[in-house]
C-alpha cells in the first residue's frame, strides 16, 4: 500500500512526540548529572545543557565528598550498588529457575493443575498488603537486612510473573518435538535441557530481563526489609538529602544514570533474543 506524504509526515510527528515524552525525563536526568550545584535550580536560570559540566556529582556519591562541596555523605554508592546487583540477580535466578521448572511441569506433565491460579493469587493483591506479616516472618528467621532475605522476597514476588510468562512459551513448543527427541533416545531431563530450553531461550532471556528490571527498581520491599548493610539503590537514592542543601538533585541524577546502566547492558546483551521472545508465537514448527 502506498502511503501519502501527509500520512507519513503525521506518522513521524506522532513518533517524535511519543519519543520526546519518553526521552525527555531521561535526557533531563543525564544532563542534570553533569551540572554543578548552582545549576540544579532556577536560581541561575535553568538550561538544558550544563554551562559548566562537572563530574562532581559522581565523585560525591562514590567518595562521599567532593571538592567544592561543604556537605559529605556517611555512605557511598558502592554498598547499595553491590546490594542491588546481588539481590536483583539472586531474586531473578530464583524466580526464573523455579518459575521455568514449575511451568514446564504444569504444561508438559499436567501436574499440579491448580498451581497456575494459586500462583496468580500471589499477584492479585499488592505486596504492601502482606508486608507486615512478611516483616515479622523475616525478622523471625533473621532475614531482615541480609542479602538472602531480600533475594528471597524478590524471588517470591516475581515468581508468578516468571511462571506465567514461561508457561505461555512452553505451551508454544510442539510436544512432538520433545517426543521426537525421546524417540531418538533422550531421557526426559535431557529433552528438557537440550531441546526444550534452547527452543524457549528467547523467552527465557525476555523473562529474565523483565524480572530483573522488576527487582532492580523495587523500592518498597527493600525499604521495609533492609536497614543498613543491604540497602539497595532506590532506597539509597531517597536518602540523598542534606539538611543544608535540601534535595541533592545532581547526585540523584548521577545515581539514576548509574542505576540505568545494568538493565540497559542486560537488554543490549539479549537484544537479539528479545525481539524473538516477544514474537515467539511466530516460531516455525
Amino acid at each position, binding site marked *: 500500500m502506498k502511503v501519502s506524504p501527509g500520512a507519513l509526515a503525521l506518522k513521524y510527528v506522532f513518533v517524535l512526540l511519543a519519543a520526546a515524552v519518553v526521552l525527555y525525563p531521561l535526557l533531563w536526568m543525564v544532563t542534570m548529572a553533569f551540572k554543578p550545584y548552582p545549576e540544579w535550580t532556577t536560581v541561575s536560570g535553568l538550561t538544558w545543557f550544563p554551562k559548566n559540566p562537572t563530574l562532581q556529582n559522581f565523585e560525591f556519591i562514590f567518595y562521599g565528598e567532593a571538592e567544592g562541596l561543604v556537605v559529605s555523605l556517611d555512605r557511598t554508592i558502592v554498598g547499595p550498588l553491590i546490594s542491588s546487583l546481588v539481590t536483583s540477580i539472586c531474586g531473578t535466578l530464583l524466580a526464573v529457575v523455579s518459575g521455568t521448572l514449575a511451568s514446564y511441569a504444569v504444561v508438559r506433565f499436567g501436574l499440579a493443575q491448580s498451581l497456575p491460579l494459586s500462583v496468580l493469587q500471589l499477584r492479585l493483591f499488592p505486596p504492601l498488603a502482606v508486608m507486615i506479616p512478611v516483616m515479622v516472618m523475616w525478622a523471625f528467621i533473621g532475614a531482615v537486612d541480609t542479602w538472602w532475605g531480600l533475594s528471597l522476597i524478590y524471588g517470591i514476588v516475581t515468581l508468578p510473573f516468571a511462571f506465567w510468562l514461561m508457561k505461555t512459551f512452553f505451551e508454544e513448543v510442539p510436544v512432538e*518435538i520433545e*517426543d521426537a527427541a525421546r524417540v*531418538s533416545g*533422550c531421557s526426559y531431563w535431557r529433552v528438557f535441557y537440550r*531441546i526444550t530450553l*534452547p*527452543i524457549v531461550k528467547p523467552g527465557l532471556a525476555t523473562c529474565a530481563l523483565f524480572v530483573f528490571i522488576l527487582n532492580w527498581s523495587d523500592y518498597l520491599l527493600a525499604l521495609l526489609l533492609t536497614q543498613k548493610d543491604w540497602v539497595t539503590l532506590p532506597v539509597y537514592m531517597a536518602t540523598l538529602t542534606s539538611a543544608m542543601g535540601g534535595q541533592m538533585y545532581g547526585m540523584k541524577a548521577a545515581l539514576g544514570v548509574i542505576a540505568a546502566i545494568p538493565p540497559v547492558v542486560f537488554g543490549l546483551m539479549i537484544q537479539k533474543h528479545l525481539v524473538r521472545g516477544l514474537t515467539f508465537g511466530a516460531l516455525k*514448527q
Partner: protein
Amino acid sequence: MSSIQINNVTKRFGDFTAVEDMCLDIEEGEFVALLGPSGCGKTTTMNMIAGLEDVTEGSILFDGQDLSGTKIQDRNIGFVFQNYAIFTHLSVYKNLSYGLEVKKVDKAEIDRRVKAMADRMSISHRLDQPASSLSVNEMQKLAIGRSAIVEPRIFLLDEPLSNLDAGFRAYMRAELKVLQHEFGQTMIYVTHDQIEAMSLADKIAIIDQGKLMQYGSPLEIYNNPANRFVANFVGSPRMNLIDGELREERGTLRLMVHGGAEIPLSGQVRSEFSSDTKVHSGSFGIRPQDIYFGARRAEDDIEMHGTVEVLERVGPKRLVYLQVLETMFLAIDDQDQLNVGDEVPFYMPPAKSLAFDLASGRRLGG
C-alpha cells in the same frame, strides 16, 4: 527389523476409550497402514507402539518380546511426526546427527552416516544451514532422514504427507515406497487418506471409533469389505449404500427405500440378504463403476430406472448422479452416452452387489 504383535490392546483416557480390544499382527518388513477418519484412535495406536502412550490393557510384542517395561529412549524406534517436529534451533546436520550422538556413536561414523543420509534425501547442500530455514518439503525429507539414520527396528509415520502440496505429496508417496524397500524395515503408517494407504501399504488396518474394522491387503479390503463402514470408507468415488426395509412381495425380495424407491433383489445378493432371517432392514452396496447402462448383460442383473440429475466430468469419464424418486445412485458413464434429464434404465450385477445388516453394519452372507 521387527515383527509386531498387538494383542487385545485397549487404551482409555479417563472415561473415554480411545482404542478398544485391538489385535494386529505385523510381519517383519511389512508396510502397514492404519487408516480411519480423524479421531478414530489410529494415532493413539501408533503412540502406544512407539511407547509415547502406555497401554491400559493387553500387550504389544516386538519379535515376541514385551517392551512395555522398556523406556522409550531404549526402544530404537523411528518416528516421523505429522508436523515433522524438526529441532528448529539446530542445524540440518545436527538434526540428522542427533540420534547418533545420543547413542554415543563414534564421531567419524556419525559424519559418514549423516553425509550419506543427506545425500540420499538430497538435502546435502543444506547441511550447515539452520533447520528453521528449510522449506516444508525439505523438512519432510529431513524428518524421514533423521528417523532412518539410527536404523530403527521399526519405522512409524504419522500422517507424514498431509502438510505437503499435491505435487510433492505424490512424489513423496513414491519415494516412501522406494525407501521402504531400501531400508527393508517394518513400517507403520497412519493416514486418513485412503489413496495413500492403498498405494503404499502391503496391508491396511481400518479403524473406526477405536475398533479395528478390517485388516487385510488393499485389494481384499476394496473387494471384500467386512462391514458397511469399510465399504463406505474405502473407494473413490464412494460406494453406493442404499438403506431400506427388506420385504418379500409377489415372490421377490425387495429393499424398500425411504422415499419410495425399491430395489428388486435377485441372484447372489438376494440369498445374502436372506441368509439371516432376523435381519429386517439392510443396506445395499454397489460401486459406481459396477453399474452399467445400455443392453442387459446377464439374466439376473437388477434393473432400475432413474433420471440423470448431474453429470460431472472426471478425466475421460463422467460421474452420473441418478435420481430414483428420493434416492440418489452414483454411476460412471465412460462412453459419453448420457445427457442431463434423460430417463434411463440401469443395471446392477448381483455378484458385484454387497449386502449389509443396517443395524450392526455387518456384512451378510459374503
